[in-house]
């Protein structure tokens, strides 16, 4: 069953605030659901499938289906961290193509800045916890281990990684909602304080609250709506782990999910006009770009340098909303925001300063969970119709 053309993204909504106070998580789910349905031109009564992550209150999707007053015939709570929402889109397309539903609502919300975010693992909560947690493997350390190994094998430099932040900051200056709107230089990044050698503070994404919703619909329904069309053309998924100790940190699961998505879409990296690339850290972007085939393995440093990711300047405009590195990273999970900006680009609704001309084919790439130990990857190829 190919997903090519199986479904359209017909509505999106990104909650504008980066610190949210005085609201409950459930309320945020409802507010973004309502706004995304309005964006699509649909109503709650049209929704017959619901997707959310494990951060939503309650067991799986159950409490939110109740709270939102939904009447669904398909429900799912796949959680692979930040890549979850890309998987929700492709799983919704699978269900639509299989005839199991017509209109899927995907919602998420998290407020880590007020302690309402993803629960942390405890020493006994997973089989691996006692072999990792005592060593104080911080989140930045998970990514620093990969960065260090990449530098060792391929000669990648901190300055090359810094260019990824520089590009994101060039885009964020045009986003009034972005947390970091100041344009930074390579020197600013490499001179910021070290958080996990060789990653500096400015190699890291922001921590933000956030919420959002996506509406995925059957093509026949999508064609009856007024908004510019965004069609799913290909999707891929993969998970990579420590593999019983056969560790290789220079390649991510995108090396598997990417080719699956490109093959299904019948396109190559050279055809992509805009790319949303998950950017928990600068190294995350570099590894995924290599694994997706935008450049050869080990050549990511040279590829991202000198503004190659800046819209209007470089060959591959990326994260034109400022990305997780500068704009937002709702609930430490940046996948959905990658979908939002790709949809804006394909609709021609990105900020004029960063809108890619004739943007008819976009890539959305996310990794989820922790890069070194266990991570997921999801790739979507989307096209304007």
């Amino acid at each position, binding site marked *: 069953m190919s997903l090519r053309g199986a479904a359209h993204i017909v509505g999106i909504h990104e909650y504008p605030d980066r610190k949210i106070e005085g609201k409950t998580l459930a309320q945020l789910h409802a507010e973004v659901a309502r706004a995304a349905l309005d964006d699509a031109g649909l109503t709650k009564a049209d929704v017959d499938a619901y997707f959310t992550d494990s951060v939503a209150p309650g067991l799986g999707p159950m409490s939110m289906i109740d709270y939102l007053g939904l009447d669904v015939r398909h429900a799912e709570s796949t959680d692979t961290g930040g890549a979850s929402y890309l998987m929700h889109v492709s799983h919704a397309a699978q269900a639509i193509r299989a005839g199991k539903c017509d209109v899927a609502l995907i919602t998420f919300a998290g407020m880590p800045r007020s302690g309402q975010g993803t629960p942390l693992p405890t020493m006994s909560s997973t089989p691996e916890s*006692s072999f990792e947690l005592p060593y104080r493997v911080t989140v930045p350390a998970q990514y620093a281990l990969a960065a260090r190994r990449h530098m060792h094998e391929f000669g990648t430099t901190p300055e090359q990684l810094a260019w990824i932040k520089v590009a994101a900051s060039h885009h964020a200056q045009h986003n009034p909602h972005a947390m970091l709107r100041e344009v930074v230089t390579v020197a600013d990044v490499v001179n910021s*304080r070290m958080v996990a050698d060789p990653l500096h503070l400015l190699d890291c994404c922001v921590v933000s609250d956030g919420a959002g919703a996506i509406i995925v619909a059957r093509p026949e329904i999508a064609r009856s709506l007024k908004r510019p069309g965004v069609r799913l053309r290909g999707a891929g998924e993969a998970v990579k782990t420590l593999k019983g100790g056969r560790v290789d940190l220079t390649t991510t699961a995108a090396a598997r999910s990417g080719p699956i998505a490109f093959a299904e879409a019948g396109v190559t990296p050279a055809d992509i006009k805009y790319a949303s690339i998950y950017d928990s850290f600068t190294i995350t972007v570099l590894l995924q770009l290599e694994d997706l085939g935008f450049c050869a393995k080990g050549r990511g440093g040279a590829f991202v340098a000198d503004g190659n990711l800046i819209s209007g300047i470089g060959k591959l405009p990326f994260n034109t909303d400022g990305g997780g590195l500068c704009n937002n990273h709702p609930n430490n999970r940046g996948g959905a925001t990658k979908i939002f900006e790709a949809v804006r680009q394909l609709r021609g609704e990105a900020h004029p300063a960063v809108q890619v001309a004739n943007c008819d084919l976009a890539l959305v790439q996310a990794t989820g969970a922790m890069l070194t130990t266990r991570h997921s990857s999801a790739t979507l190829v989307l096209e304007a119709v």
Partner: protein
Amino acid sequence: MDVDFKPAAPARNPETAPFWDAARDGRLLIKRCNACGEAFFYPRALCPFCLSATSWLEASGEGTIYSYTAVPTRDGAYIVALVTLAEGPTMMTNILAPDPQAVAIGQAVRVRFIPTTGDDALPVFVPA
């Protein structure tokens, strides 16, 4: 390691109790598959390569650094590393090094056991 830090005690369970018992005696145990013969880490009852039964194997305690990062703290820094054991598998650990700047990928290291906040000891590595 940063001054006076004691790592959190691991949680024991039936699958891993022999690992922690041996750690108290200063021995590093890993698992090896009875069927495919592959050694692996972290220890679990069935082989992650073929889901066959497994046995404990005492590792030499020698290895090399695959990758590492120095994480700054208020009173210094600690080093998180992945160490590839002489027996093959790579494991997460800390490196205790008098000079964090002297730590390098490929460096030979040797296991050492340090106290945790509980009764159990934790395997870490020092330059060989």
